């Protein structure tokens, strides 16, 4: 394998990491503030991908379809998120974690059923928008412009989340909620509404990930659990609740998958390598590379 190939697999790994980071950041943000592990996070990613397919195929012409989907799908998943947070999660806050897990797991079954009912079980595919549907030469090989676009979007999302959390009043309130929601309510902040907003941001990120991935993989009813497994692996490696952890974990998992699939002898084990990495991190640092040990 020459240098050009290495660079190519590296970039391909980063483009896998890009989508995984966006999805995991949403999962992690929600866990950090609400202390809820949203099992239905992958379902919202799947819904994002199906909404993307629907918008592109039915509602708009091919030129604007993808860009419209990029706005519409996160909006829809954010609204679904608000409904879920208000009607499913609010009643079980402060109760045992098992109730939250069961509640959001029930949602994964409901969403999976609904998606099958509405869209059928067919595997669909979408092509990248015309403006990005080409390749650029890198070390003499062609590399997809769309995959570079994914990396750029992930960088923008990371920067946006950083600015949101560290430079805005909303972000300051979210950080305060992460450390002490009860104290926050005594300072006059409506924590109930803040939690809904945080959950909506989280599910919007899941939806965004679903749109972004749709031109690079098939859109099918099994994609919810696939992404959730990877997002959990990333969370464990990077540390649940840490954005930097999500970023580093996503890059590690993206590169493992990309290089794992690159060689025929290891291709079958690529996903196993991800879990091997997870086991190693769990053994050395059970709270993840950037997580904090629970007091």
């Amino acid at each position, binding site marked *: 394998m020459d240098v050009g190939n290495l660079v190519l697999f590296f970039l391909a790994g980063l483009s896998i990491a890009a989508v995984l980071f966006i999805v995991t950041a949403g999962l992690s943000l929600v866990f950090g503030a609400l202390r809820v592990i949203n099992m239905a996070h992958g379902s919202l990613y799947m819904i994002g991908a199906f909404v993307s397919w629907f918008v592109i195929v039915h509602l708009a012409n091919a030129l604007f379809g993808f860009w419209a989907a990029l706005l519409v799908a996160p909006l829809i998943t954010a609204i679904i998120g608000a409904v879920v947070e208000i009607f499913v999660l609010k009643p079980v806050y402060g109760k045992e974690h098992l109730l939250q897990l069961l509640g959001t797991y029930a949602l994964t079954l409901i969403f999976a059923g609904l998606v099958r009912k509405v869209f059928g079980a067919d595997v669909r595919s979408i092509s990248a928008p015309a403006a990005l549907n080409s390749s650029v030469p890198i070390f003499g090989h062609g590399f997809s412009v769309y995959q570079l676009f994914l990396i750029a979007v992930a960088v923008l999302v990371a920067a946006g989340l950083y600015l949101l959390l560290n430079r805005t*009043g909303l972000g*300051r*309130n979210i*950080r*305060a909620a*992460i*450390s*002490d929601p*009860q*104290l*926050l*309510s*005594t*300072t*006059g*902040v*409506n*924590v*109930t509404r803040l939690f809904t907003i945080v959950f909506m941001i989280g599910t919007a990120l899941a939806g965004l990930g679903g749109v972004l991935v749709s031109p690079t993989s098939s859109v099918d009813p099994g994609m919810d659990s696939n992404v959730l497994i990877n997002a959990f692996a990333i969370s464990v490696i990077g540390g649940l609740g840490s954005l930097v952890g999500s970023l580093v974990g996503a890059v590690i998992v993206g590169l493992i998958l990309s290089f794992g699939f690159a060689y025929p002898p290891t291709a079958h084990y690529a996903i196993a390598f991800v879990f091997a990495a997870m086991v190693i991190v769990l053994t050395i640092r059970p709270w993840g590379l950037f997580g904090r040990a629970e007091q």
Partner: protein
Amino acid sequence: MSLLVEKLNVHYGKSHVIFDLDLSMADSEVLTLLGRNGAGKTTSLLGILGLVPGTSGTVSIAGSDVSALPTYRRSQAGLAYVPSGARCFPNLTVLENLDIAAQRRSSSNGAAPARWNKERVFELFPALAELKANLAGGLSGGERQMLAVGRALMSNPKVILMDEPTEGLAPVIVQSIGRLVQQLKQTGVGILLAEQNHQMALKVADRAAFMEKGRIVEEMPATQAVNSEVLHRILGV
């Protein structure tokens, strides 16, 4: 009247922990709540704040009934809280800890006793001004106590609930907290001071209420409580 509490009852699950608590505080009055550990002082404050679910009774702040309102609305109506251990947001800077209480303060319920802002808080606590950009988690106990009080003031409260502000602090700092309570009283704010340190509390308070097993058992002017038989009987000093 800065704070009026009538027949406040608190239940934790099946156990009844606060019984028919009645409190009334005039503007700029300091009322100290004295009692041994477990007498129900902290729980009473949490009940007034609306932070414990099994609470019944009436709570009014500056004349408006907030009994049906969630905690954040009570805060907006003029109720501020300085929790025990000077709890702050450790992962936020000193400045952010103050800013967080400055948002969304209501101006509808008449003029607050004093208008507080960051500049005035830093005038009151010059040491905090030096630490503006530091994370609250790295402050000393005394500095955190200043920050907790500063945060309470930033919401322009009509009444401040203080839960054992002197707990675990050095005698010099205890004295300065005593002076601080008197200073705040001058600005027109009412202070409900739950304390174990009865010497400091009775020095700065106008009235004292003694709690035992979730009930207020005696109430009297602070001057009368000093060295009283009640003090010896209830606090065992």
